[in-house]
């Protein structure tokens, strides 16, 4: 059975590979984004040593690694699931002896492997060449970051799956998906690190899963969190991963009863 799920990873990876040219422009767009934020932050720092616990050098690294992490963990599972629900192809998924959500997760991971090797790594190399990015020197930070990056993918995909499944309950979840994208980009710390938020908002963020997507791995990569602190932030990710399984389970169960196959 497990070789089946590996096959879904493999097939999605190969399908993505066939369309790889589409992603060359993506690398450019992400590099451009890093550039825009780099120069904006340069202007904001204007010679200041440190703002909200970030040195200017750390900020450059944070911006670069956050965008490139997004290049990896980003996927359209929400849209894929919503489309399958809306056009009724979900019916085909129900006549197969496998777990639909696990298959979706595997397809997302196949895409992730593609994005990691063909998008994030080349993008990161370009970013390092263009901007003064400081790569971690300790192997522990590297390993910690990579493990956390994987959990970023898991948590982001879980949120996508949850939003996608909402299509069972509301006929059109386009608005919800667009809102989710903005919320994830903002509250994960991609656009502004969470320590820059006003105090009350920062404390709210501590109770939401979004910081686990970008801010926490970014903090490890920039060296703001080191040593045993890495285990601590990794622990937060693991807890969020486990917590998010609960609403997915219940949403899926409710969806089974509600399922209404569109188009006869």
């Amino acid at each position, binding site marked *: *059975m497990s*070789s*089946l799920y590996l*096959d879904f990873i493999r*097939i999605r990876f190969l*399908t993505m590979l*066939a369309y790889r040219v589409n992603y060359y422009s993506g690398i450019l767009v992400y590099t451009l984004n890093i550039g825009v934020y780099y120069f904006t932050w340069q202007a904001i720092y204007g010679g200041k040593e440190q703002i909200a616990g970030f040195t200017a050098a750390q900020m450059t690294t944070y911006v670069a690694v956050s965008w490139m992490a997004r290049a990896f963990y980003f996927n359209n599972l929400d849209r894929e699931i919503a489309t399958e629900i809306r056009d*009724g*192809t979900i*019916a*085909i998924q*129900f*006549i*197969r*002896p*496998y*777990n639909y959500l696990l298959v979706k997760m595997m397809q997302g991971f196949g895409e992730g492997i593609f994005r990691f090797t063909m998008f994030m790594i080349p993008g990161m190399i370009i970013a390092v060449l263009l901007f003064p990015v400081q790569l971690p020197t300790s192997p522990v930070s590297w390993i910690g970051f990579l493990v956390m990056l994987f959990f970023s993918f898991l948590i982001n995909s879980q949120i996508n799956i949850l939003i996608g499944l909402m299509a069972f309950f509301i006929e059109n979840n386009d608005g919800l998906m667009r809102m989710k994208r903005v919320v994830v980009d903002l509250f994960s710390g991609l656009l502004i690190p969470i320590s820059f938020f006003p105090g009350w908002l920062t404390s709210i963020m501590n109770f939401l899963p979004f910081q686990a997507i970008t801010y926490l791995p970014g903090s490890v990569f920039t060296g703001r969190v080191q040593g045993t602190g890495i285990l601590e932030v990794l622990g937060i990710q693991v807890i969020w991963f486990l917590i998010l399984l609960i609403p997915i389970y219940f949403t899926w169960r409710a969806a*089974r*009863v509600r*399922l*209404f*196959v569109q*188009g*006869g």
Partner: protein
Amino acid sequence: MQAIEVQDLRKNFRIQQSRGGLKGALQDLFAREYREVAAVNDISFTIPQGEICGYIGENGAGKSTTIKMLTGILVPTSGHIKVNGYVPYQEREKFVQGIGVVFGQRSQLWWDIGVIESFQLLRKVYQVSEADFKKRLDELVERLQLQELLSRPVRKLSLGQRMRCELVAALLHNPSIVFLDEPTIGLDIVVKSEIREFLKDLNRTQGTTILLTTHDLQDIEALCSRVIMLDAGSIIYDGGLDDLKTRWGRGREVRFQFGGAVQAAQLNAWTMGLPVTWTQESDLVATALVPADMAVSDVFSRVLGQAEVTDVQISETSTDEIVRQIYSSGSAEKPEEQPHV
């Protein structure tokens, strides 16, 4: 053992009621009105193993909804289902191992990959051993002549080619029950008859139980010993196709073409004492409706001696005709005014 048992099966859908006008739209924004509609209304039937059963009805009669409940896709509102010994929606993953499904309007192959790769993936999905898979695939490929198609991507197949591949995809794991939801929709006559032949073979050699929905009654005539007819969510007929024909068929129509003009009164006079009704198309053409229990030769012997007949055609009431009548009356009960039943 029964392959399919259904008892008082019901599926309600909640349909949102839109109120008209701007005021209505505003009201809808805050409090929506819903209406419960029974797509399938307390139906019961059993299908024994090895039977080919046709499931027919007008669009929206509830055929697809029933198929979707039987295959575990939809959860019924109430009632009992047992297919292959399982309650479909409860033990879905185990249950679907034993069934095959073809939706004529949806593909279950993966669009982006080759046909053979889709089959390979299905082999893993259904955990079919390499040896069984190869044997079964060879048989099916030979039977349906798919040799040249195997390496093509699914999106490059014609509808007829794709449908044959869909059949293979549904049968690779050797299911004992196969559900076909409009399997011949949009296909040309050659592919249609190929698929019918194939299904008949499958049923004969493997004893596969087949339930199919269709709008093409030739599918039913070619394949099914039994028909279940659905109207507005309720079963209106369940029985043999022959029964339906004898019960509903109005006998035979004998169309005479005469050499000279004939009056209606003459016609009736000729067949005086016989349960025959005449309809006249023109002075030269008239049709006699002969009940099923009467010999056509009786009419001939009366008519041929009386007038010059240039041509005669005999036709039976077609199944299409019968079904059209039933659909439009909404009941398979024989209308009262037919005296000879």
